[in-house]
Every structure is written in C-alpha cells, then in structure tokens.
C-alpha cells in the first residue's frame, strides 16, 4: 500500500492502484470519471498528493466502493491477508 509522506509523517494510505487495476481502468478513464487531470490520479497513486474530501468521494464512487476501501489513515492489510487466513485457507 502506498502512503503519503510529508515531513516524514505518513498522511494517508491508499488502495487506489489495486482497485483501478482490478477494474482494468486506465488513469485517464478514472480521471474522466472523477473530473480531474490524469496526472492527478498518478500523484494520488504514488502518495504524492492528498485529495480533498470531495475528490476522494468522487474517486470512491467512480470505483463503486466505499471511501474507506480506497483511503485510510492506517495501513491496509494486503489483499492476500484479506482473502486467506494465516493458514492459507480461503476465508
């Protein structure tokens, strides 16, 4: 998971690259849905820009997931951890 770092302090974590890749969306397509420049999606994915609440909500809506599935103040667990328990069995 990417984390936004400013003055050495993580600001937020995002799952945006994974969610976008899962949907087979290009940055340009997501940018058009969210009403921003495609570069901004890249900056968000690399954790180099903190979005406003409105933009975060628009991105979550474009991806069809709740806001807290895309952005979080604490690190996300990995997709593998969420799909499988510690023994490797499907949850």
């Amino acid at each position: 998971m990417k984390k936004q770092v400013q003055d050495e302090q993580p600001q937020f974590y995002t799952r945006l690259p994974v969610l976008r890749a899962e949907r087979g969306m290009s940055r340009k397509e997501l940018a058009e849905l969210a009403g921003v420049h495609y570069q901004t999606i890249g900056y968000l994915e690399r954790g180099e820009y903190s979005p406003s609440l409105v933009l975060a909500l628009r991105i979550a809506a474009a991806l069809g997931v709740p806001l807290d599935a895309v952005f979080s103040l604490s690190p996300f667990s990995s997709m593998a951890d969420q799909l499988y328990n510690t023994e490797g069995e499907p949850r």
Partner: protein
Amino acid sequence: MTASPTYQQRRAARLDDPSMERLRNPRTRRLLAAGLILVLVAEAVLIGTAALMPVWVFVGGMLVLIVALVVNLGGLKASTRGVEELPPEVLDERQAQIRGLVYSMSYRVLSVVFVITVAVMLLAQSAWWAAPLEVMVIIPVISWQLILTIPTFVTALRMKV
C-alpha cells in the same frame, strides 16, 4: 446536448496537447528557460546598440527576437501545461493548488525584480552615472517582459507539473 467548450477550455486543451509531451521534462524546461533568458539578453543588447546600426537592421533584429520569444515562451507554457496562467475553473484541485504556490513564489520574485528595477532606474538618473537613453529604455522593457514571464519560469523550474 453537449455544450461547446469555452475559450479557456480550448486553451487548456491546447496547452495539454499530448504531442508536446517531449517538452515536459526538467531538462527541456531548463533549456527553454535558458533560451528565454538569452532572448531577453539579446533584446537588451540590440536596444543598447540600436544607435550603431541602420534602422532596418534594428527592426529586423527585433522581429526575429519577438518571434523567438513567442516560440520559446509558447514551448515553456506547453511544458507546464499552462497551469500558471489558466483560470481555476479549467484546472483540477491539484493544479489549482500548484497555481496558488506559483503565484506566492512569483510574488516574492517579482518584489525583488521591482526593487532592483527601481534602484537601477534611480542610479541611472543620478549625476555620477549619467546613463544613456538606451539604458533607460532597456531597463523597463526587459523588466516588464521578465515580470510577465516570472510565473512561467517559477512553474517550469520549481514545480512538478
């Protein structure tokens, strides 16, 4: 029915033209900025030596330099996608934030350029320098062009656009 794009939307699209992508890297931006400074210096030299040349040489030289200035500045603006000069309604929130940073930095640079311009103008008028008329033309003309281009310089050289 889709509304036709506004003038500013068309400008934004032109400045964001994907065919200009080769200009959008730090090295090319630095080269374009250096080129623009060279054009301004050449303008100052041409105005300073105007009395030594026939009028047609001066006018021809100025025309060439104006074209060079327009091409260079256009390239520099395309390299920054025009973030520094487009109005907020055609920028997204990140670009608008960059625009705000550019203007605050440009304000500081502009203040310095203004103070230097006024100081040199006052010195040029003082008895011990007695600067020729050309100097009194060069200083405001070059300062004015520099002031107009400061936001573009700041964006090209300091911002991630």
